[in-house]
């Protein structure tokens, strides 16, 4: 469970410290894994006894919701890249994108 706490905190730091949106998605997913780890760890603490199925079912739901969130966040990232030519949020990192290749058409 302490591993879960560590993962959650690392993910939170990544989310706040990295400007690249893809890295933020990675941070969010690591945070989710940490949360799940705490949950399952809490349900499986007594050795030798079958683990609690309720948190398992909830985490299974959580994994699916996490991939939905990730897919939507990545679609937003692609859209932001199409519209602004960059993969960071405005104001967080202020180097202008190179104008000649940023808006390249596929």
């Amino acid at each position, binding site marked *: 469970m302490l591993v879960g706490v560590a993962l*959650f905190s690392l993910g939170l730091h990544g989310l706040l*410290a990295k400007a690249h949106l893809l890295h933020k998605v990675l941070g969010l997913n*690591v945070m989710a894994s940490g949360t799940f780890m705490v949950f399952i760890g*809490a349900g499986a603490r007594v050795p030798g006894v079958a683990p609690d199925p309720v948190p398992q*079912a909830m985490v299974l739901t959580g*994994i699916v919701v*996490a*991939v939905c969130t990730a897919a939507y966040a*990545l679609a937003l990232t*692609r859209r932001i890249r199409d519209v602004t030519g960059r993969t960071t949020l405005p104001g967080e990192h202020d180097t202008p994108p190179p104008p000649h290749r940023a808006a390249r058409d596929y």
Partner: protein
Amino acid sequence: MSIVAAVFDAVLGLMLIWLAWRLLRSDDLFKAVVLFIVFGLMVALAWARLGSPDLALAEAAIGAGLTGVLLLITLATTGHSAYATFDARPRVRLGWAGRWTRGLLVAGVAAILATAVWSMAEDFRGLAPAVDQRIAEAGAANPVTAVLLNFRSWDTLLEIGVLLLALTATWALGGRPVSAFPGAVRMGGMFTVLARFLVPLLVLTGIYLVWAGTNQPGGAFQAGTLIGAAGIVLLLSGLLAPHRGHAFPLRVLQVFGLLVFLSAGLAGLFGGHFLEYPAGQVGAFILGVELALTVSIAVTLGALFFAAEPHAARPLPVQGRQQEAP
């Protein structure tokens, strides 16, 4: 617990933290994504060690596999500029005060969480006894399936809703279909040969997983992801080219699972409450709902990968393009 098992668990835990640290620190995004996939597989291993084979299957298929593929395709389609070729160097710019605030915030959250986890009751057994007590009535011998599709079926019903919502929101963004990016897909050649072997195998494994899911580890989500992956392989290999004609049947299949689940829930209204299956036929109801869910999950996940509506041949206009192009 034997010493070997304890050492293995400790190494696994440390490795998870180390992988998370490396992937979040990495300035090379491609490396970060690959590390993330490895991280996902390690998490799956951790679930197996924690006695949750259902989760291990789901994590390997969804957490590592599908999320990894989505990340790679986004990297391939957004990373090809001089500005961002796999480069994640941009960090959030903050003064020293901002950095300290951020550090303290993260450390504070970590400390509070650690205290909360540490102070949990030792002998707490959670809801496992309650589930054990009524598992015989649940219509599924696998306790996780019983919780998902009977005791807490509301969660699962809404989860399918979330899946549809994510797809609707992604479609609303009107992105270009993934197949419109040259180089990103249409792998052809060897991959097509591989796909011919891979697709039937994936579908077969998926069908087995949903069939076994009521009594053994497995179930609609794991199976749906595998079959969805088969669809993605078909798209990548060029064996299946989406076109306008697919749009309507796809939509029908995507809402099919939700509709079957809802009508099964409504059928319960005759005997008692919403989502309360008639006694004696619970097993059949659960299997029916699981099969319908598998189909919808497979099609929805495949569509999420593809990103754009099949009939949206023309992408939404991009504002600000004129100012950027010299």
